[in-house]
């Protein structure tokens, strides 16, 4: 069979994958650098099926997602940092009401209105809550255009398996750059959603989608249930990639775009005789604490490379638990360092 290979932007590949994954609806609002997503879907969905709606704001988008997901739809939205901040209230409601859906944040530089260039400054927001209350999102971090497509399928699969929102945390570079992408995904079967509001049919217990549990005893139970689910997710769904870690003395931990840059840095370091390796967390939640902790038994030092001020470094430190020094190198505000620049700073860190 001939393969479906295309040259596409990450945002477009993600949008195409969404249609192929059988989304029933997309609700979104334009923001750079992810506007290709609503543009692509507004062009394609009228002839290929599904609801496309440009909402009046990200606030409205996320609440439309709530309504549609609660009505049993396979539904997604996408945005970029400031817009994704606006969605946080709705994300909290969706997490509590246990509605499966796919959210995408094509991270740009912040804080504030910031810049439209790539950044990883939303790591904390994505992995530590973002909205109010005790909840978690499954967070997938693609580092290629291919993965932006693949993780749409994986995202919906996990969302529907665990009845939980899944976030794809990409960035302005992965979203904007063009690469080869292969579409060979198995179709996603429709899952049974007996809890959805579809009208109270004969013999069917009525469905109520809510995140309101005014009695503290009930609210605590809901929280405990959610945390059981997160424990299950943590047990089953940790994903990471390792490059040359077997004999590595010095390990870079990086995700997304930073992992691609750091991969080259590791190659350059190896050429200079440094036993370097790379750990690329693919799920930022659940985080690969155990594996990184294990690697810290052999490695001498670890450094995160992030397009932020060292947010993920805190998780690496938790994983390493004081066994070896953990450092950070990163650029801020939308600047992307070269592999050579990272190597220079990696070597400095090694010598410290």
């Amino acid at each position: 069979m001939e393969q479906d290979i295309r040259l596409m932007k990450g945002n477009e590949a993600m949008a195409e994958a969404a249609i192929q994954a059988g989304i029933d609806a997309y609700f979104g609002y334009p923001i750079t650098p992810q506007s290709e997503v609503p543009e692509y879907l507004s062009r394609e969905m009228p002839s290929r099926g599904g609801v496309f709606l440009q909402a009046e704001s990200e606030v409205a988008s996320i609440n439309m997602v709530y309504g549609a997901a609660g009505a049993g739809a396979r539904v997604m939205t996408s945005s970029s940092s400031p817009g994704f901040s606006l969605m946080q209230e709705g994300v909290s409601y969706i997490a509590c009401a246990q509605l499966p859906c796919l959210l995408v944040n094509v991270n740009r530089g912040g804080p504030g209105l910031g810049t439209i260039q790539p950044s990883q400054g939303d790591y904390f927001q994505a992995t530590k809550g973002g909205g109010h209350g005790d909840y978690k999102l499954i967070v997938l971090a693609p580092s290629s255009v291919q993965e932006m497509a693949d993780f749409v399928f994986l995202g919906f699969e996990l969302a529907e398996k665990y009845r939980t929102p899944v976030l794809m945390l990409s960035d302005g570079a992965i979203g904007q750059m063009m690469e080869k992408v292969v579409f060979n995904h198995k179709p996603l079967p429709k899952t049974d959603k007996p809890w959805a509001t579809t009208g109270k049919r004969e013999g069917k217990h009525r469905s109520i989608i809510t995140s309101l549990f005014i009695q503290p005893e009930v609210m605590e139970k809901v929280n405990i249930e959610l945390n059981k689910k997160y424990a299950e997710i943590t047990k089953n769904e940790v994903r990471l990639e390792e490059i040359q870690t077997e004999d590595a003395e010095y390990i870079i931990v990086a995700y997304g775009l930073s992992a691609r840059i750091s991969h080259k840095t590791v190659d350059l370091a190896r050429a200079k005789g440094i036993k370097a390796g790379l750990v690329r967390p693919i799920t930022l939640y659940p985080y690969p604490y155990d594996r990184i902790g294990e690697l810290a038994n052999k490695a001498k030092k670890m450094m995160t490379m992030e397009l932020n001020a060292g947010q993920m470094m805190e998780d690496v430190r938790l994983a390493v638990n004081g066994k070896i020094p953990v450092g950070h190198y990163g650029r801020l505000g939308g600047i992307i360092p070269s592999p050579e620049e990272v190597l220079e700073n990696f070597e400095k860190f090694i010598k410290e």
Partner: protein
Amino acid sequence: MSEEKEKIVEAPGCLTAEPDLEGYELVYEKPHTFTDVPMHYCPGCGHSTAHKILGEVIQELGIQNNIIGVAPVGCSVFAYDYLDIDWQEAAHGRATAVATGIKRIRPENYVFTYQGDGDLAAIGTAETIHCINRGENVTIIFINNGVYGMTSGQMAPTSLAGMKTTTSPYGRDIKTMGSPIKVSELIANLPGAFYVTRQAVHTANYVRKAKKAIMNGLRYQKLGLGTSFIEIVSNCPSNWKMTPLQTIDFINNEMLHYYPLGDVKLPSKEALDALAEIEKGEKK
């Protein structure tokens, strides 16, 4: 019967025994679309009346199994406890966005929101206007009592000029706090608004009219020609610091002067003819 008598209604913090009805003639009962949960509304509050006529309409239209409600944040946040239908509970102000999401996915269902003035006309203004501007095929029931009830009596966007609330203790000064918003008149200008009416529920006659308006608002979803908007000017004895009877005077003497009752926008004759055709087909 004795078994019936001992049937205890499950409700948080509230136990109610079924009354012994032997020897009595049944002249009135609550709609079958209601659950047995006792309402939390204060005595004399218009919400319970509005709920009741909504429940009656759903029963009379025979759409209990085909309707999805969206509850707001505010006094009617627990609406889903009382009406035995499928519901979604929305974030504050976002009911019309949630309803949009539901209706776009399930156009075959009747979808409505039930919202108060703070929810619909303050924090949810953008969602309200854009839902109606898109002409979403949903019904919006808007309870306007000029005050934030659930949070105990703060100023609402619809509080009358001079009205004393806990956040306008010297009275609403329109120079610094803005004027009360006449939502029905505002949104009737939008082409997506199909039917806009302002009703009340504090007298029997008004209740009958309001019920008819809600019924029409839901029936119009069969046409798919836009949004139906039913404003109900209501009361709040607890936060107006009045007896229920005094609130009736206040509605008549103050509220209805600023918020006149009646239809603000009506469907065309052609649309109503089309509806009659559809409903003729349904009967067959």
